[in-house]
């Protein structure tokens, strides 16, 4: 209907900030992490996923999207040679999320398979300073009068309010802090995929759900302002376009519209490469476009890696 992120903001009582937070941007710009050398490897990763992975001429999106993701994660994981604390991470696939909260007397719930989740043993430190958190008090949430904010949401009779950390990890799980959620839009048909705006809204809702469940597990079910804000990151892609998001949960007091709000930083529509040509395009016996990846943007990969390293570096 209309931009989904604004609706999601209202539902989760969040203030939006464009671009990545300064902590993450600092990791991107810091040359000590050796991000330049990894450009070559990232380019190979993209070429492998888009061009070389199959015995047929060109792989389909259902194949190349997960393969690209796996390749990029493999490069990121190999950094644990340099930063040993990176081994304290674990990937969980097919995890289910369920979280409920109240918003101006409307009970809302987030449920479903939330893609791939990366957990870590240590939480991410809060990204926004205390002043910024206090400043959100003045921020007024956008309302969409006369459209109800719960438009396009499915109304369901909930008999049990579930508040697990979604994938229902049992107690005693060492990697208890959700770190990053990954969403892969890999359907072949374009109409089955989420459009970038909807993908961002989905990422926000699921990041919020995970953060809320974690906060409730840590601090109890009462709505209150959190001393230690919970930070959950989220990355969504369709194989070419990347959306980066960092969500900080400052308060579980979501019933009222005033008070401290949560914060989200979104960096949207980052292209990793322009075009992947599997077969050289030949017009009138002259090669116009050679085979290969064109328009590779190393910055997008640097941001991916920075979000991965965030919290341990």
């Amino acid at each position, binding site marked *: 209907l209309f931009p989904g992120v604004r609706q999601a903001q209202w539902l989760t009582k969040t203030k939006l900030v464009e671009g990545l937070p300064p902590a993450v941007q600092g990791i991107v710009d810091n040359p000590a992490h050796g991000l330049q050398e990894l450009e070559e*490897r990232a380019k*190979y*990763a993209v*070429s*492998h996923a888009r*061009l*070389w*992975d*199959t*015995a047929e001429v060109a792989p389909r999106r259902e194949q190349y999207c*997960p*393969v690209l993701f*796996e*390749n990029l994660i*493999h490069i990121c*994981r*190999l950094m*644990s*040679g*340099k930063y040993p604390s*990176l*081994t304290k991470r*674990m*990937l*969980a*696939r*097919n*995890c*289910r999320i369920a979280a409920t909260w109240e918003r101006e007397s409307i009970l809302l719930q987030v449920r479903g398979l939330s893609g791939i989740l990366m957990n870590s043993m240590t939480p991410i430190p809060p990204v926004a300073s205390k002043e910024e958190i206090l400043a959100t008090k003045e921020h007024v949430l956008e309302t969409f009068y006369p459209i109800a904010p719960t438009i396009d949401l499915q109304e369901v009779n909930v008999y049990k309010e579930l508040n697990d950390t979604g*994938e*229902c*990890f*049992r107690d*005693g*799980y*060492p*990697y208890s802090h959700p770190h990053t959620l990954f969403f892969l839009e890999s359907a072949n048909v374009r109409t089955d995929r989420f459009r970038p705006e909807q993908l961002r809204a989905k990422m926000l809702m699921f990041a919020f759900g995970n953060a809320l469940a974690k906060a409730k597990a840590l601090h109890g079910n009462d709505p209150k302002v959190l001393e230690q804000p919970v930070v959950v990151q989220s990355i969504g892609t369709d194989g070419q376009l990347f959306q980066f998001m960092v969500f900080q949960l400052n308060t579980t007091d979501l019933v009222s519209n005033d008070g401290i709000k949560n914060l989200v930083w979104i960096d949207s529509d980052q292209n990793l490469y322009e075009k992947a040509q599997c077969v050289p395009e030949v017009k009138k016996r002259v090669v116009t476009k050679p085979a290969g990846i064109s328009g590779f943007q190393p910055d997008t990969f640097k941001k991916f890696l920075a979000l991965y390293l965030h919290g341990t570096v």
Partner: protein
Amino acid sequence: MAALGARRLLRAGRRWFSETVPAAPSPPASPLYPPVVASVTAKSKAAKSRRLQRFNQRVHAAATVEEKLRLYGKLQRPKYTVYPQTFALNADRWYRSFTKTVLVPGMPPRAAAAKPPVAAAGTTLEAGRAPEPGAEAPGAAQAPEAVKTPEPATGAAPYLDMGELRSVACDALLQESFYQNKKRPFLYRDQDHTPGPFLTQLVSTLAAFLSSRNPLLAASSLDLKPEVNYYWHHGEEVVLHGHRKGRVDPVRFQIDDNPHLQIRVPKQLPEVVPLESDLGDVPVIDHKPSKLPLFKKQYENKVFIGSKVADPCCYGHTQFHLLPDKLKRERFIRERLEDQIEVVYRSNGIASLFAWTAAQAMYQGFWSEADVTRPFVSQAVVTDGKHFAFFCYQLNTLALSAETIKNNPRKNICWGTDSKPLYDVVEDGNVKGFNDEVLLQLVRFLLNRPKEL
């Protein structure tokens, strides 16, 4: 008159004779007739061999590797599909005869310099020559200072912390089997529910953990569920029915394999033994391959290592195979075929590794008429989630077709262990009976690298 005529004739004859005396040997002219060779289109043995020679020349003269592969597999005829994961009895003997492989039990002896010292809390394991994981008895009465460091010149390499590795493995195992709440496994899909994800987690975290020690791993490429194919000829048979009845044809085989996980690297693993070594015998089986049972089908002749020729990571390092539910141990025990359990692991190791190494060799331009000049080495781990069997394969020859195998003394070699359990049971968030040696062997596999690195 007659005398005048005779004199004229005599003079004429003399001139004729003088004309025929060759003055000097004339320069050698190009042959007047083209060389006499067999026809190309006739139905004769000579014509068939001439056609084969022309085909071989075409493949030899191909400009790129892709073109060579295309010509190599251009002709489609019915061929036997060889499945690496099979329930056939004694399949590993058959596969060894198809691929001319010698099976050597145990692990290959490695040079002392390739092993980092390992220290564990309480027990010290001797680093160095260790042909079999079982030969290293832990808890040997050695003081920690007496552990031989194999690289004294380069300074003591940091100890490989066994405890850390064990915790990594246990965490992966516990997450997949205990901590993460999953739905019930789908019918007959037990392997996708727990052992599959566990293997993926274990390998990816171990590879990342060990990448600081092994620069080859740092440049590697990890594939999930890749495809590996290879097509070859071995032996001859007579066509039985059809319009080609009575002709002598090579026996064609094709392996289409889907390992669970594979690591490809840009540099080749070093050779284990020299190219011409002979470590045993290849079993000879007099029956037709269809008696195994093996069935014929005709489809595309693919040669593929997991990615196309243009990929820089064109050599293989390690493959990981997961045995499906159909081949689990309980079924064999129930049918009183306990000795076939190891056969399953061995046949999977031999067939998959042969296909992978041979496809790697073809990507470098070698084929059955142009045999390899250096051995290709790869490793594999075959597991059903709990029991692990390790294999190392060295490809010494690709020349397996009927003409080229006659004067070929080389044999391919496969080293393999029996399957050993990694742990006994998982209960209440604890892993009971964890076997360090299996993990150590896995770590050794991942740390394998060329000598110059």
